[in-house]
């Protein structure tokens, strides 16, 4: 409190828009609103950029997870009218827990202690970009690309029922080079890719025109489940699994419609293949479809904040917001009260998903109706492991997908893991950070998913479990990397909301940002129906960078 109050007052005290929380969606809105000429104040209670999208050191991560896993009460417990001003009703903001079942274990405290600050661990991992992603287009278009540098993910693997990892052959050259596919399998897979490509080419050319019907996939097929289409094309199960879970990145078991919450239709599957296909080779020095930002995904929020700052957005970190100021008569939002005691006013407010607005007093209830900032769409189990050696020799950055039922019969959702090495400046060199995520209904299942994937890949130094570790070693002659540190938690999936107070979404369970971008764009358009989401600017400063992305090969 005393720290916060030492801040000089913020000038001016009235803005078009106040954004609280520098997560990626907030930062995007800050950047684009500034670019269309709005005056924007961007606040964050944390001492770092990125909020739930940040990349943090081990101590920062530990304390962030812990502080957001228990509900913290509003600073002053009063929710009634404050005497300070008579013009406003004061609503104190509360935060509700977004993370549950946080378990953090350090197996080698002495190894890590001195280097624990040289980590940039993503809170919302695992996450990678498809080269042809909308997010990449936006990064290039917005000029944020000049603050970012990327590196390719070297490879993707998919696990089969027997626990073997197979390389994901995702391009013509990769199919050619692949050592694990049989010749006939290569032929089948490539033929399927060609079929999809032809379909897309024809669809691009004439929208629904007749004449070239034979090279298009029929409407009937497009509407059927993708897995049925793959079967119809006589693709063997192994290749079906590669396409469904490691290329189209389906979350739920597509072969078991009872538990599948999201059946991927052929049309959707083909769109995802198209994204993958366009990603391979979009950048000549990216070896595959996927890239990762150096210093972690937190850089992304920061890059957009810098874009916003260039356009005049005002930034204040380490500034908690205590309460909302509501118009006494109108019952409408007027401004916020900072921890420093200053009151600031704006037309619009965007809140980080951390915050909840407690029930307003009866006098306001009517007008505040519908102020439900929370729309919980399930949970995602995340795991972060720091390991002392790579899972794969001679390879440091790669993706591993465990399709449903590949680890144990009750596994209903895909588990995705991404290993990132010291070369991407996310950890000291020689170490690797391994991220896991899986969608789940409850914490227990979520934890089971993480445990299964982690024990399949890692040697977990657990004295109680000596039996299982010896069993594991028999099965797999490769020496598994030793776990140095791990964190597992269950995160609420919260989507953004628009009202007179808007709220941004939490990181979702996907590898990519497409859904988050769409949600953010929607939010922006609802706030500013006339505003263009990242207007095309040919600013001379980044003219030379246009269409370019720095990619280290």
């Amino acid at each position, binding site marked *: 409190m005393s720290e916060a109050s030492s801040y000089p007052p913020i000038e001016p005290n009235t803005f078009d828009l106040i954004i609280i929380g520098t997560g990626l969606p907030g930062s995007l809105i800050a950047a684009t609103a500034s670019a269309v000429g709005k005056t924007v104040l961007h606040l964050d209670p944390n001492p770092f950029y990125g909020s739930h999208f940040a990349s943090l050191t081990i101590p920062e991560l530990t304390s962030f997870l812990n502080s957001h896993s228990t509900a913290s009460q509003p600073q002053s417990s009063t929710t009634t009218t404050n005497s300070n001003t008579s013009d406003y009703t004061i609503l104190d903001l509360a935060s509700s827990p977004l993370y549950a079942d946080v378990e953090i274990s350090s197996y080698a405290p002495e190894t890590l202690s001195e280097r624990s600050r040289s980590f940039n661990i993503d809170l919302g991992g695992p996450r990678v970009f498809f080269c042809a992603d909308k997010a990449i287009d936006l990064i290039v278009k917005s000029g944020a690309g000049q603050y970012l540098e990327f590196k390719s993910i070297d490879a993707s693997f998919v696990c089969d029922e027997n626990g073997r990892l197979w390389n994901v052959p995702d391009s013509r*050259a990769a199919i050619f*080079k692949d050592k694990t596919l049989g010749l006939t399998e290569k032929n*089948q897979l490539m033929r399927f890719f060609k079929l999809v490509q032809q379909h897309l080419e024809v669809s691009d050319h004439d929208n629904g025109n007749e004449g070239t019907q034979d090279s298009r996939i029929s409407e009937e097929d497009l509407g059927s489940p993708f897995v049925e289409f793959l079967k119809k094309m006589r693709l063997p199960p192994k290749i079906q699994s590669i396409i469904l879970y490691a290329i189209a990145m389906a979350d739920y078991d597509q072969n078991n419609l009872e538990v599948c919450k999201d059946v991927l239709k052929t049309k959707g599957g083909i769109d995802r293949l198209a994204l993958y296909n366009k990603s391979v080779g979009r950048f000549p020095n990216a070896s595959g479809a996927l890239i990762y930002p150096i210093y972690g995904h937190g850089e992304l929020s920061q890059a957009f904040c810098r874009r916003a700052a260039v356009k005049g957005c005002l930034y204040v970190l380490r500034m908690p917001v205590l309460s909302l100021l509501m118009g006494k008569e109108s019952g409408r939002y007027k401004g916020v009260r900072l921890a420093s005691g200053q009151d600031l006013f704006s037309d619009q407010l965007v809140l980080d998903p951390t915050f909840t607005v407690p029930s307003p007093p009866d006098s306001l209830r009517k007008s505040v109706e519908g102020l439900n900032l929370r729309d919980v769409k399930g949970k995602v189990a995340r795991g972060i492991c720091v390991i002392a050696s790579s899972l794969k020799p001679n390879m440091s950055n790669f993706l591993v997908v465990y399709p449903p039922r590949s680890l144990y019969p009750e596994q209903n959702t895909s588990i995705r893991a991404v290993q990132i090495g010291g070369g991407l400046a996310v950890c000291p060199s020689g170490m690797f950070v391994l991220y896991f995520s899986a969608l789940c209904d409850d914490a227990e299942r979520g934890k089971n998913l993480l445990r299964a994937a982690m024990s399949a890949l890692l040697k977990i130094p657990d004295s109680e479990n000596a039996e299982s570790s010896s069993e594991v070693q028999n099965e797999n002659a490769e020496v598994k990397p030793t776990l140095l540190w791990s964190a597992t938690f269950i995160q609420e999936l919260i989507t953004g909301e628009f009202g007179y107070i808007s709220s941004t979404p939490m990181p979702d369970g996907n590898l990519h940002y497409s859904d988050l971008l769409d949600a953010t764009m929607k939010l922006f358009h609802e706030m500013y129906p006339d505003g263009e989401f990242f207007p095309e600017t040919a600013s001379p400063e980044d003219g030379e960078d246009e269409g370019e992305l720095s990619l280290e090969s």
Partner: protein
Amino acid sequence: MHGRPRKAPKPEDEAASSAKAQKLRALQSQFLSHHQNRTYSKEALDVSAKLLEINPESYTAWNYRKLAVQHNLAQSDSDPDSVKSILDAELRVVESALKQNFKSYGAWHHRKWVLSKGLSSIDHELRLLDRLQKIDSRNFHAWNYRRFVAALMNRSEEDELSYTTDMINTNFSNYSAWHNRSVLLPSLLERKVQGFFPKEEALSYEYELVHQAIFTDPDDQSGWFYYLWLLDQTLKTDAPLLVSSFPAYGSDIILSRDRRFDESPLHSFHSESGTFPLVLYFNEAVEGVSSATVMVESSFCTNNDLIWKPLSINNSNAARVWVAHVKFPDKELQQAYPMEVRLGHSQGIISSGGFDYNHHTQIAFKVCARSLETETNEEHDEKMISWKDEIFHILKTQSREPNPFISFGQLTIDADHEATTSEWREETIANEISLFRELLSEISCKIGKLTLARLLSAHDAILYQSSKKTIHSEEILGLYSDLEKLDPLHSRYYKDEHSLVLLQQVTSNWESLLRHSYHCIESTLSCLGNSVCLRLNNLSLSRMGSTENLLWVQMLDLSHNELRSIEGLEALQLLSCLNLSYNKLPSVTALGPLRLLKSLKVLNVSYNEIGSHSTDTTRYLCPSPLSHTEEVDWERNEIVTEVDNLSKYWEAFLIFKGLNLKQLDISGNAIASAQFKSFLVSFLPTLKWLDGALLL
């Protein structure tokens, strides 16, 4: 770089290009005046550099620069600095020209020329190539230049090969990279470089690599090309082989001057000239068959009496088939003369690839001469051969009659070191066959079918050497029939291949040949050797093949086929009666091989297409008969003065003049006018029947 559609130029483009042309013309005239005046000053060189930067195809400018370099180098008194600056300037000009067009022949050549002087550093070259191959990895100019630079730098072939692997891994649709592999690999194999020995292992690795390309994308040509090369490497034997001979190993032949011997029709042989041919049939064209390289031993004939001649239509020194004529024994003796032909003991018979015939081969047979009385009653019992079906009777199998031919496959494979290779070869081919059957069960693919057909043929050829059987013929014939329908554009090729396989099937064993052999009851012409006729009519043949199995044939019926060419028939040195009627022979030149058949007496070429085509395509396929310098055994002066229409029918004259035909049927061809017939009669004194009419 490839497959980009050409766009129609826009008006502003046209304006730009006309402005460019104007600038170019100005530079050009300036440059030409410098060239004329031999001005090699810096300013003059700059003009040519500018010109080449805009138009790298200006060969005159490149030549001018070469002259300038020579001139300036001479002036420089070999001062290292000025030499360097002169040559560096050239390299820079080439680079800017290549920026304009990286497929400019002149620019690449100029660079080679500069570097060949050996005065400039070559370290930069590979980097330049990397840059250019990034723009177009298939650019064959760059690959060509790469080979030049690699040789200049003494870069190891292993390194270059692994470079091609990298390029192929990046994108396997790179024919240039595959091709460079096929250039590097033979040398690595031959030198037995570590990792490339034994050859079988290295080739197996290549098969694995190219399978990945073919199976991943069967529509891509580059893998298939390499595959065919690889198949060739697998099947080829370095040293040439003797495939068959006449007389065959272990045979007894009966010679006569005037009469045939019905008791052993397949082995009796008649010749008016009193000689019989010795024929050696190799698996590839060889040179150097002579009395020095082939030893012939018998009591009646010595080595030095023999003159070996290549049976080659285009008068080359190399041929697959060689012939020498042996004189009959002088005295008539009932006993058989043993005769032995040996080759491979001394060097000198060399294939076009430079390999010696090195199999020690002995062909022993017996010769028996009979009825040497020279005077017989002529003409009155001689009749014309009608070729009608009625005159042919099924040949009764005579068990005593030995097989008239023996293929040499099993005789020549002797050495042990060949055994492992051939075992590997058979295994590899069998393996490939099952792979391609699998591929074809997945997809329908023309080149896949063709490759499978070739693999099956190769497998049959291997099996034939050991077991004398072909097992895949029916499947191969089916594949080629399929292909004819699937790919009408190349149907003639498939038809030819179909014919070859069919002939192979028919001639591969004696039982099947017997089914096509007939006794001819009408062949009473005294000039004919025997009465056995091999009838290969009505088989839809479009070309000849398997002639190595037919060296013994004296009467051959090929009528009612679709022959467009009779190439290969020249090997049948005993042939005296030949029926080619009802085929598609397109021209007189297509009959070229007949000129080498000195025993031919009866020829039927009626109902072909001779004279129907205004363009004689045979002439383009092989050198025109007019270019032949073959010995001419007639007086040129006599011809020119005595024969009418010579210039009009010159080709017919060349082909028929050397033959001693007694019967010729030529009706049913566009060329067969009364004028043509009388032309033929005018220079063929031996001719008795022309188109069924007795000449008086």
